[in-house]
């Protein structure tokens, strides 16, 4: 009647027990990381588009306004992908026979759409709405990143629910004056770069409620980021961030100075009548 197992088996047995435990833990951690990894979220992926369109070139280089192409970003849920016409406007004159632009000319000739591949692709059951964000002071860059520095477009944020909630639970930290919506470089106020704001007429569209400036208005005439001013506007014809020219009524009322995003966030949350986190994180806000 000898031993069934030899000496080493003791150590082996205990070691394997410990190992199993470790593996289980490791697996959990791995999965947790995986669900947030770019492989799943598609962050930073640059799908090969029919035309290697460079936002960097057009925005930074040529200084095109976002809205020149994304026309309806302030008016509708979709920002709008520019029709071929928009490209042709310029490329009828310049780079008229660049090989890169062949698909564009094709589309223009044949009348068939250019088939882009969607970069920011939310699930179909999520109803994201551009205009309300833009009109309540969430800048393009807040979600899309420094598009002006992207030679090829890619998705910067995870676009996962936790990411949305992160802001919906505390909008303040991303709010900025609507006048700065399209400012890619906007960094928010800081002690060395403060922002002055004043509230103007009440009751107009959000965009007209507040004037902000980055240069001290008390020192010399401020270049005030003024926006069209109107009284309560009838339904359907909501005036938005940058509709029309800024009409006079320049009353540089008592300007408040903000040197931190936190304070500015608080101020704008009140001024822009941002709904409460409770409401913003309620399901029906995004799912219908």
């Amino acid at each position, binding site marked *: *009647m*000898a*031993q*069934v*197992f*030899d*000496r*080493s*088996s*003791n*150590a082996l*047995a*205990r070691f394997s*027990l410990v190992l199993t435990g470790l593996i289980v833990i490791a697996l959990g951690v791995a999965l947790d990381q995986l669900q947030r990894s770019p492989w799943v979220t598609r962050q930073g992926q640059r799908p090969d588009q029919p035309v290697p369109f460079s936002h960097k070139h057009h925005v930074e280089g040529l200084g095109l306004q976002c809205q020149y192409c994304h026309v309806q970003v302030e008016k509708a849920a979709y920002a709008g992908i520019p029709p071929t016409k928009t490209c042709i406007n310029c490329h009828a004159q310049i780079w008229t026979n660049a090989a890169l632009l062949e698909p564009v000319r094709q589309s223009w000739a044949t009348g068939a759409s250019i088939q882009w591949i969607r970069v920011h692709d939310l699930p179909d059951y999520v109803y994201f709405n551009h205009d309300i964000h833009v009109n309540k002071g969430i800048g393009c860059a807040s979600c899309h990143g420094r598009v002006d520095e992207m030679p090829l477009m890619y998705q910067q944020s995870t676009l996962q629910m936790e990411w949305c*909630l992160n802001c919906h639970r505390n909008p303040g930290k991303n709010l900025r004056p609507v006048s700065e919506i399209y400012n890619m470089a906007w960094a928010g106020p800081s002690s060395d770069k403060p922002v002055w704001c004043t509230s103007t007429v009440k009751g107009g569209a959000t965009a007209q409620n507040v004037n902000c400036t980055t240069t001290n208005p008390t020192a010399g005439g401020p270049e005030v980021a003024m926006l069209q001013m109107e009284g309560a506007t009838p339904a359907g014809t909501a005036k938005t961030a940058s509709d029309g020219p800024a009409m006079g009524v320049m009353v540089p009322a008592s300007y408040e100075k903000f040197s931190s995003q936190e304070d500015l966030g608080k101020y704008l949350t009140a001024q822009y009548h941002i709904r409460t986190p*409770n409401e913003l*994180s*309620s*399901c029906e806000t995004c799912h219908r």
Partner: protein
Amino acid sequence: MPPREGIYGLIAEFNTPSELVHATEQARAAGYRRMECYTPYPVEEAAEALHFHKTRVPLVCLLGGLMGVTTAFLMETWVNVWGYPLNIAGRPLFSWPAFIIPAYEWTILFAGLSAAFGMIALNGMPQLYHPVFNAPNFRNGATTDKFFLCLEASDPKFSLSETRAFLEQFPAISVVEVDH
């Protein structure tokens, strides 16, 4: 582990629990301390003879239970009050009566697991190899119908000849050396 030198101890095999208990009591009286009985079923008298009473298993179990209840209840509270506060059927966010039940279940889960694994750990299991298995009859009887007393060499009072003599005074079926 590297094979240790010398023998592990002397092991005596008995037919009945009574004999085992008797021998054990004598051995203790004789001043032996490092010894152990091996029986096919729990013999409490043997434990008394060894003066082995306290086990820490209940304590481990208790700690496990406490851990379970706190983990569950805190999780539920956090999820409902801070994690994602939602209006569910107009009930309050902190619906403690509802939270009790999962907390209760996890108390039992954690306590049970720690009791079981605590016991295994305290018993130093798994220990697939053990010197006593080297004793020729051990695996024949120890888990079936025989009763063993092992006086270990590590005991200061242990000396091969004397101890053997000491054991042979009892009606043991056999007294054999067990090497590491």
